[in-house]
């Protein structure tokens, strides 16, 4: 593992600065587009309760129900980021 970390650090050091993407400035009204993966038995139930209690959160959060967060796959996370999701929330 240590070798991999060193290799990565070395790659970054040797890469010209021009091709590393600079961090974006966050526009004022920007809301992150967040996708939540929630376990049917707990976090999804908690999301329901948040509604019952009329707790407010950003409407840009959308929830995908899983039978268990153990079902979450790398590919789900990768696809979401690839599609431009800003953040992923796994709760279970």
């Amino acid at each position, binding site marked *: 593992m240590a070798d991999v970390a060193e290799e990565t650090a070395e790659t970054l050091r040797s890469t010209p600065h021009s091709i590393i993407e600079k961090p974006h400035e966050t526009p004022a009204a920007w809301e992150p587009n967040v996708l939540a993966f929630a376990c049917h038995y707990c976090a999804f139930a908690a999301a329901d309760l948040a509604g*019952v209690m*009329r707790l407010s959160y950003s409407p840009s959060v*959308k*929830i995908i129900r899983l039978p268990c967060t153990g079902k979450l796959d790398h590919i789900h996370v990768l696809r979401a980021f690839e599609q431009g999701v800003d953040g992923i929330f796994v709760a279970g």
Partner: protein
Amino acid sequence: MSLLANSTKRGSVLIVGGGIGGMQAALDLAESGFLVHLVQRDPSLGGTMVMLDKTFPTGDCAMCMISPKMVEAGRHLNIKIHTLAQVAAVEGEEGDFTVRIKMAPRYVDPDKCTGCGDCEAKCPKKVPSEFEQQLGPRKAVFSLFPQAVPNTRAIDSKNCLCLTDPQKKRCRLCEKACKANAINYEDQGKEFDVHVGAIILSPGLDRYDARVRPELGLGRWPNVVSSIQFERILSASGPYKGVVQRPSDQKHPVKVAWIQCVGSRDNRNANPWCSSVCCMYATKQSIIAKEHDKHIEPTIFYMEMRTFGKDFDKYVERAKRDYGVRYQRAMVSAVREEPGTGNLVMRYAAEDGTLVNETFDMVVLSVGLQPHADALDFAKTFGIETTDYRFPRTTHFNPAKTTRQGVFVTGTYQGPKDIPDTVMQGSGVAGSVMALLSEARGTETTKKELPPERDVTGEAPRIGVFVCHCGTNISSTVEIDQVVEAVKKESGVAYVTNTIYACAQDNQDMIKQTIKDQKLNRVVIASCTPRTHEKLFQETIQEAGLNKYLFDLADIREQCSWCHKGQNEAATKKAIKIVKMAVAKSRLQEPLKSETVGVTPSCLVIGGGIAGMTSALAVADQGFPVYIVEKDAELGGLARNVYRVLDGSDVQEFLLSRIAAVHSHPNITVHTGTEVKNTDGFVGNFKTILTNGSEITHGAIILATGGVEYEPTEYLYKQSQQVITQRELEKKLFDGNLAPGPEESYVMIQCVGSREEPSQYCSRICCQDAIKNAIAIKERNPKAAVIILYRDLRTYGLREDFYKKARDLGVFFVRYDVDRKPVVEQAGGKVLVTTWDYMLDRELQFDADWLVLSTGLRPHPSTDAVGAMYKVTRNPDGYYLEAHVKLRPVDFPSEGLFVAGLGHAPKNLDETIAQSLAAAGRAGVILSHEKLAVSGIIAKHKRELCMSCLSCLRVCPFGSPYIAEDGKISHNEVKCMGCGICAGICPAKAFQVNNFRDDQILAMIDAAVESESGVIN
């Protein structure tokens, strides 16, 4: 099952009380072929447990656990729920009772009400909420709590502006708000009769009203609250939304005190019994409070820490070590408010007798449990006898049976107890009733008849989308028309419409008709949460001939409109996304077949002690063959060495009667001197080979492998003739008829081999044993001296009486600390016991003729091997680990396996009996089915993709992947619960979970980020 046409018994049961215990009994009975009438006084099921925030010792959320049970009970075809109801009269006898039920008017028609809550929003009348313990308001038209079942509002006639006005002309705002026309101010309630074969009483207990003791300040000082109020304060859905604050000024308290035994263990203006649960709930509350706010400094004032249950002592240790909870042994005499600050000054005597004044920001009174005010009338209605304390009269050997045949009790009503014991008794009483009414099983239940399923294979998706307004719940925030228009353009969508209430009967009919008219082959309903409504809608589409898995629910209420009030544009955009995500999934849905497997209706019981025999008899009485496998040459187990229980009942007589009953039972085969050699199979279909060569096929297994007593190595045991164990003393007293001499002295040491490393747990039985023997000595010779050296005297529940009796008889109790244990030496003909007395603050010495060691319990040495064979986990102390500490106390995660007795944890005989009946009840649920349905939502294994890396085998909690004969992984779908952990971990993606397939989830992800223009943003 056996449908005897000439049976005189009825196949239905009345259960009075819809708390967790009553619901458990109802579900077990309804699932095994009995019709249940569940009568509940409140407008909703739930009882006490729904008011709790978290539960000890796991910290699980109470509502999250009980809510699915309420939904299940509420939807069960064979459970008829009568809320706001009481029983007025009972006639008849065991097997055939006629019960008169009186229902108070609800003023809301449950057939019309959809539970949307529009009426409640408009109601102008606010009153203090009983559910929130007066800490928050509710309306006059109300739901007891948000997850209430049935989900129907009720009007409180004492507070409704309209019902309190004789002209009924005022207000009527709820009537105007209700689009379903469910409000009925003229409701008169009703009275009707039901006929049942047995009656189960589970009305629970009330809480002690601490205002009776004004010196403690409840109702006087605003920052003194009762423990149940503090539960609501802690609850995230409570009046303070989980923020720990003082009622007087909303300030965050730092120093918080709990006062134990308020209303318990006290004869003056209170109850003499121990309420069993307060030590644990106070510990839990202090931990949770600290988790909510790390600045809180909790102190618990107690007399004795009675944390006797499984893993309870470890919980207290954790509270001390990790949360800094201070446990102060002291009686608090008074609480008074410091003028101007709202702080509370407590006056108490420290253990050395000095009086201390200490100031706290907030005080919680740990109130005890007591029978309801009308307990005597209640008992009279059912014709059962009560004890002096107004509890129902039961016996030690049959804790569920009352003095009237066919009338049973369960839960805290029988005596104070915690949730797992309540659930256990619920299943246990169900097991007893199954045995009683076995011949009438299946005679009164109904089964839903469904039309044949339409074959949709090969059809292109034709999705119908129904977008619900939910009155104004959704439509006041989400623009329904925009959702309808946006979804119309989606590929595969054949039809979109809106509906006021998708769940109302008329709209259900409309949905069914539309499925037929539009030839829909998939349905998406955009309304509320699948957790409560999925099954309802699945049934709707089944009634229209569609496979129930061709359905998806888009939650645009709980997870959209209710959270984004006032943000209509953003909420509408989100609702469109949610519906599109559901449509994307729906396009890829396929009809799924629910497989069924046959059941061999017989049971294997491993262990022939009291637990095994009680389970075996209760299963055999239901009409199923039972095989008992006992390692020893004879039946009886540990109880062979026990002669009396605390109340004096004769254990040997009971044991012999059980052994005789087992041997003479036509359905029971006993294999003694035998063990299990090999086992194979799954729920409903096990195959077992015994060491004597017998081969048994059976549908369920009960592990009742029992325990052994700890054999001490300390305190000169085996070195001095005068050092014996309680069990050896018991034998002398009750078998040898020992008569203690007038000058004889007995010193007893408690917790020998318990509550310290390496066995950091309470053995639960030893305090009772010591007191039982001490009373026997004193009764035979009042002049004999008996001294009990103890750490905490744990005569919990109604056992407290015997502690008092022992004190009254002159038994001395001296507390010792684990850091300063008694020292024992042989001095001539006496055993010299030296101990520190914390009250006198000096050393004490006793010359004992007999030193009696109260030794603890250990799991039977075979527990590990049996556990490994059945792949059931053991806890660090070696006891079997049940499926869920709270709600599945006799189940294992693998279906068809159950646990009873000491193999699960140390417990008293009555508790072992209750648990054994519970195991029999749970087994009966399986054995009464000819076939078991396997859910359609399971993992499917593609062998051609599988590399047999064994990842799935390691992670599956249910043991469904297995190594087949060819050496490669196969998957037993019957054991699969559909969690998909295998699918998550499988590197080859050989596992896919039905309806949660990767392609479906990816399609949802894509739909979630796709912009309205179709461009991915």
